[in-house]
């Protein structure tokens, strides 16, 4: 009987002030959209930074006539080198073809333009420069590439992305709660007389609160589900196209992003709605 009562109260509330409900739903919708898009950008930036960091290693490209075994031995003798991993020109070509997603074909090439190489993993990013310099002097090594600068920048960038992300997400969350609580406060305010009467005749506080909290949850859910549909739909649509155009950027694929992101967005919407309601209704429940 009580749950039916609560539901009836919620529906009455929404019917009585549809504009306020629309305002709440729209607020949650817009803020969840911002939250959702912001999160996808953050996650992608971090994935990018991580993938770049992973690639930070010294790559020694070999002359065509180099003695692979001798080069490997000399590379591994350099202090700070963990391992020298041989990448044949064929492997390198296959990797490139894979990354370009079929836009170049092995068959199109008359010969493999890529050299053999060693990917030298270094125990610390600080050693990169020294290792690179010594590797360059080894006979049979044509060219050495390493991305120290990029590594440092990426590390700093990653920290920045996280810091900014946490602050912005926190602010977004807070502002959503405040705005929702403000719009719901108007519906609570419109019913303050009723609340007063309920308190006067002895309604328990939770009994007074629940319809409003349910209303908040419902509005939050509605707004966030709509936003999740938009964020999810657009992400699933845009990412394949982006990967196609800028193939060197490692994007987080939709199936790796959305199953986690969307439930979080929806739950967040419901939570924000509940919290907003609670904040408002408590203001009117002072005994």
């Amino acid at each position, binding site marked *: 009987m009580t749950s039916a009562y609560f539901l009836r109260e919620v529906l009455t509330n929404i019917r009585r002030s549809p504009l306020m409900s629309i305002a709440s739903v729209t607020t949650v919708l817009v803020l969840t959209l911002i939250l959702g898009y912001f999160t996808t950008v953050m996650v992608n930036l971090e994935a990018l930074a991580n993938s770049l960091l992973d690639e930070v290693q010294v790559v020694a490209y070999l002359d065509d006539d180099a003695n692979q075994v001798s080069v490997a031995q000399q590379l591994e003798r350099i202090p700070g080198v963990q391992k020298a991993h041989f990448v044949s020109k064929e492997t390198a070509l296959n990797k490139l073809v894979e990354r370009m997603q079929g836009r170049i074909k092995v068959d199109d090439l008359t010969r493999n333009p890529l050299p053999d190489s060693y990917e030298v993993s270094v125990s610390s990013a600080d050693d990169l420069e020294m290792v690179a310099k010594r590797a360059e002097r080894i006979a049979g090594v044509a060219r050495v590439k390493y991305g120290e600068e990029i590594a440092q920048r990426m590390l700093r960038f990653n920290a920045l992305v996280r810091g900014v992300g946490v602050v912005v997400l926190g602010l977004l969350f807070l502002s959503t709660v405040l705005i929702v609580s403000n719009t719901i406060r108007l519906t609570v305010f419109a019913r303050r007389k009723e609340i007063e009467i309920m308190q006067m005749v002895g309604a328990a*506080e939770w009994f007074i609160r629940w319809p409003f909290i349910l209303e908040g949850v419902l509005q939050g859910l509605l707004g966030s589900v709509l936003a999740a549909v938009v964020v999810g739909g657009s992400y699933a649509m845009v990412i394949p196209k982006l990967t196609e155009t800028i193939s060197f950027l490692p994007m987080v694929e939709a199936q790796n992003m959305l199953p986690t992101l969307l439930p979080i967005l929806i739950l967040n919407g419901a939570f924000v709605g509940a919290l907003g309601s609670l904040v408002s209704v408590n203001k009117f429940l002072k005994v």
Partner: protein
Amino acid sequence: MWGFLKSPEINLDTSGQVPMVDICELDLVYPNGHQALHNINLQIDKGEFVFLVGSTGSGKSSILKLLYRELHPSSGSVLVGGLDLGELARQEVPYLRRSVGVIFQDFRLLGNKTAAENVAYALEITGTPKRKIPSIVAQVLELVGLSDKSKRLPSELSGGEQQRVAIARSLVNKPSLLLADEPTGNLDPDSTWDIMQILSRVQNSGTTVVVATHNQQVVDLMRKRVLVMKRGHLVHDLARGAYRLDGRGSGLHVEQPRAPFSAVEVS
């Protein structure tokens, strides 16, 4: 928020062995520093009918608010049915209010509910089983003489009828104590007498009734115990029948003893 997990039972002592209302050395100071009540000592027994009189701002309403725990005493104690309201937890207040009915000058009915629905509302929100509600509502509306108007909205009822609905609502949870704050303040003399008669019947059924009013005529004619408030002090506590105001209502005659009252004797 998780209050529904436990429902504190409030049991007032209605045996008559303790006073229904026991106020002791009570001071009430508002946050702005204004002292609304000074050293009030007052006992009201079970089943009594008491008028609280005094001009606006004399502290009548404050006393009522203390009795249904809208206000907390600054010092001293307020006991209702042996229960110290100062020690009542916030979540227990609703359960106190099921034993203390309150009616107001402005009726405080829900405008979108019929008379019967307004009364039923007080039962619904206290968790009364749904099938029991209609018969209880019919009974209480019968008691206040509104059986034929149960389906009317408040806007379709006269002031007196609205107040009767409010009384019905306050009685529906069978309170031990009924508080009325200027219940006839908005009513014409006929309706006023209706309401007073109903309140008398409520008293006769064993409920303690406390009425705050400045309708001197009513007090004069009803001949009940009268507590006179002045600027936050309880200045007179006059036994039943010992109170009469002069014609202009500007002063107070205390006649004791007094001949049986001949005019409109209500109870």
